[in-house]
């Protein structure tokens, strides 16, 4: 019986995956650049409602992401604090907390979007707005961040906290001055991870921040993020293909930057 060609199979699969995603990237890059060049020329059939285009989407992306990060950071830190405290006193509650966070970060974003739409857009009267989008987004990324923070704290030596408390340092100071500074890479990774999720998100934003292509002037205005803009152009706009690709190129570049930073934080740290 000859040995099965596992090496061949594995190498083949890896090459296939690499080829497929290279094709994808190449497609986005070529078509995207093409689209950028085409749309840089004066347009023939634009209406005034279409004014903002891809740069308005970029602005929306930045403002939604920043606001969502800022609102979820305190919440995530609070959750880490809660995790540190409850885990020390009641391990069961601590485990339940981590499970809850895992489930929350894996909740399909469309369902969170529906909650955000019903709650923020309708009940709170925010309508389609950057604010409603950011709040909904933070509902999604806060557990994700908290989960990453807690993973970082869990990775610290178990005795660290006990020793600090034993020396008479308060819980509060132990948390802020010892535990958090000791797991800075995990915190940075959590934030970057959340940022990556925020820039990639479509489903929960399409329901809350809307698909407006005009310049947002305040957080109460609707605005499509880049990802939503790509969806809108590819799906709803006849002849939107070149513009969809150029927006997708921008989106991929922004997102890949975030992901590379994340990968460096993950893999590039000291061995």
């Amino acid at each position: 019986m000859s040995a099965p060609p596992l090496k061949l199979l594995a190498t083949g699969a890896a090459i296939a995956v690499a080829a497929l995603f290279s094709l994808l990237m190449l497609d986005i890059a070529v078509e995207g650049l093409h689209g950028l060049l085409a749309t840089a020329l004066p347009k023939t059939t634009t209406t005034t409602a279409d004014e903002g285009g891809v740069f308005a989407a970029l602005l929306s992306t930045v403002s939604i992401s920043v606001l969502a990060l800022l609102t979820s950071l305190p919440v995530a830190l609070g959750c880490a604090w809660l995790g540190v405290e409850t885990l020390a006193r009641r391990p069961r509650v601590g485990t339940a907390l981590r499970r809850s966070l895992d489930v929350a970060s894996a909740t399909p974003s469309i369902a969170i979007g529906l909650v955000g739409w019903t709650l923020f857009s309708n009940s709170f009267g925010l309508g389609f707005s950057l604010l409603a989008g950011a709040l909904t987004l933070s509902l999604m990324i806060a557990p994700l961040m908290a989960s990453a923070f807690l993973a970082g704290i869990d990775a610290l030596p178990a005795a660290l906290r006990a020793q600090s408390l034993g020396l008479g340092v308060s819980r509060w100071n132990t948390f802020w001055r010892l535990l958090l500074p000791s797991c800075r890479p995990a915190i940075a990774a959590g934030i970057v991870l959340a940022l990556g999720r925020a820039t990639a998100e479509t489903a929960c934003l399409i329901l809350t921040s809307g698909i407006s292509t005009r310049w947002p002037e305040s957080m109460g205005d609707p605005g499509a993020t880049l990802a939503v803009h790509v969806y809108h152009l590819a799906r709803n706009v006849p002849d939107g293909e070149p513009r969809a690709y150029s927006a997708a190129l921008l989106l991929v570049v922004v997102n890949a930057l975030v992901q590379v930073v994340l990968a460096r934080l993950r893999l590039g740290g000291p061995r």
Partner: protein
Amino acid sequence: MAAKTFRRHDANYRQSACPHVRNPGSAAVAHGLPLLRTMPPSKWFFCASAAALLLMFGCNKNQAVRFVITGSSTCQPVLQEVTARLEQRDPSVRFQVEAGGSGRGITDAKTRKAQAGMASRDLLPAELEGLTVVPFARDGVTIVAHASRNLAAVTSEQVKAIYTGKLTNWKELGGPDAKITVVNKAEGRATLEVFLQKFKLKNSEIKADVVVGDNAQCVRLVTGDEHAIGYLSIGEALRAVERKEPLRLLDLDGVAATLENVRDGSFPLGRSLYLLFPGQADAEGQRIVDFLASPEGSELLYAQGFVPLSGT
């Protein structure tokens, strides 16, 4: 400066607290984000909270009057254009036009969630209550196919047969031997309701191959698939043809899908477009109505493929 002393203190403290952990996180600090490196976390926390609150409430202040219009996605492009022009004249009012279907337009206007609603179908008697209904244009729903198809006209019977799955091949319409891709509209769209009403169909009887949301999605689909047959607002379809999209509007029961036939009422699948106001139209609402009735408004409606009511 303050941050620096803080950090020194931080390090001393850490050394004394856990002598066996050699400066925990110091290697990590070198790889952390610079911002994280220079600021103690508790300050970070308060800065973030403060900034979030500030952004949320500070940026939300908007001096301009806000006028929200929601409803039919058929009406949305027109109103978007109309309000953009009104804004150019008077920037103090900021209009916001959101699509969401006629049903949403009716509900939002009734509950005063929006200052005006848009509807692209006739309102039921129960829905009329408490609303001022202003018709502003006529539109029709046309059957469309890919321009490469050698088909110019269909009859009501054919449409019915196609949509109920009794007529499935282009051969039977004089085309090549290929399966018809039947494009239907998603639930809640007024276009679907007008279509079902005219052909006395139930949505559950329709055997569709693709379900699309907006009119524009329908154009995308039919222009991208030469075997497709769909239906959508005449306005949207004419604009697509004007953009040289490979789309063909089919005559229905011998009547061409043109604005003239919509205007004189001979086109069988006609409908009116309405603006809905809670109670009486306020000053801003009146400005929109007046604009739509003006010569400039008529011109704009024509350009968008609708027939203005104020006969020009």
